[in-house]
């Protein structure tokens, strides 16, 4: 069963393949993301982030969840030499680079805690999968092509993993290099596969902002795999990407599809 909601202005879905009705679990998972939005949204005047920016709060008086995210983000900022930044060029706190991934990861953990074993959570293109899509079968997660939402750059077979993609299509915000305050360049699309979505999301943003040296930088410091598409149209990989690609050599039908995966 597939559950849908809009959080942070972003469409999100939870596809649960466990038997039974899991509407309550899905609602609780969405609630954790709404809670994150209430704390970290730059668009809500009453969010802790907005209040921090107005100096109504300090880092000493923000809540526990804010502190948790702040500490995580600080660590990524330090390891990336400032490419991943906690403040935007005008000096305001801006944790958008980590909040969506962190919130979706937390929602996924909530589902697990509620006993849901087989699910796929998609938070506006950032994905967490758990268990199987059907008994014995991993989740096939497509990485969309910059050209079209219907076309895949690659398809990954994943269990209990997360994928995040940063790309130059559709997104209404720049992906800035925190060192320069200017948009990163070099890639059309960067996808990072990691055990948790917080890491995958931050690294996808950071690698994109960092440019050509990004994939290797990330793979050397974090347990992750990367598939990037350069502006010149070449694939770049780092880590153990091959491990996650759906196996090659399966017989395809005339349309180039794997027949057994098509139910109709």
């Amino acid at each position: 069963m597939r559950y849908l909601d809009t959080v942070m202005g972003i469409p999100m879905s939870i596809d649960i393949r466990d038997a039974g009705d899991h509407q309550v679990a899905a609602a609780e998972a969405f609630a954790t993301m709404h809670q994150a939005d209430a704390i970290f949204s730059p668009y809500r005047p009453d969010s802790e982030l907005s209040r921090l920016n107005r100096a109504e709060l300090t880092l000493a008086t923000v809540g526990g969840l804010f502190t948790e995210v702040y500490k995580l983000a600080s660590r990524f900022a330090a390891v990336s030499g400032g490419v991943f930044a906690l403040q935007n060029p005008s000096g305001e706190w801006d944790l958008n680079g980590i909040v969506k991934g962190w919130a979706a990861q937390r929602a996924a953990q909530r589902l697990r805690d509620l006993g849901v074993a087989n699910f796929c959570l998609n938070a506006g293109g950032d994905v967490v999968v758990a268990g199987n899509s059907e008994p014995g079968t991993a989740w096939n997660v497509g990485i969309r092509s910059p050209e079209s939402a219907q076309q895949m750059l690659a398809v990954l077979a994943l269990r209990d993993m997360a994928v995040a993609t940063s790309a130059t299509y559709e997104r209404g915000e720049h992906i800035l290099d925190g060192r320069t305050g200017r948009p990163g360049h070099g890639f059309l699309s960067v996808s990072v596969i990691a055990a948790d979505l917080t890491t995958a999301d931050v690294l996808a943003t950071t690698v994109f902002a960092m440019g050509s040296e990004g994939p290797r930088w990330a793979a050397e410091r974090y347990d992750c795999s990367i598939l990037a598409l350069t502006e010149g149209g070449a694939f770049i990989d780092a880590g153990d990407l091959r491990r996650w690609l759906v196996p090659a050599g399966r017989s395809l039908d005339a349309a180039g599809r794997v027949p057994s995966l098509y139910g109709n």
Partner: protein
Amino acid sequence: MLGKWKGTSLFLAIFVVMGATFGLRLYLAADQSAITTSLATAPGTTTATGAAAPPTQSSTTPTTPSAAPSTGSATSGSNAAAAAVTITGATESTRYGNVQVAVSFSGKTITGVSVLQVPNSNNYDQRVAQAVPPILQQEVIASQSTAVNTVSGGTYTSTGYLLSVQSAIDKLP
């Protein structure tokens, strides 16, 4: 830009309406929705309707938002007096292309939103297939045609979309 987000309760009403239109319609009307049906009955089918897919189709489900207070139920005459107008929002440019919507009103009630423009990488050609293919690249390409359960992609540009909706509302007399 932030000013447009702040202090506009009507805007929040639109947000709710859109949530209802896009989310609940898919979710509650699962039996009628071709998309949801295909997802439910053929989980292996290639449907890139994941969150990355922009709502290129117009959604004109009549909605009666309980928000939009003080509408004053302008019934000066018959129901037809609740003038049906469609207002085109400003084109909001994002780094990745333009976003523009048209909003239909009956009086001050929004009855539909049509997407006129969304970013589209028209200049992207078949470079992927032309790149020098090492073995890994061939494996990547070989994986492309596999059916998917979900899609990872850059976040949909809801910001530009909502700003365009907002500008259409601002033009309402």
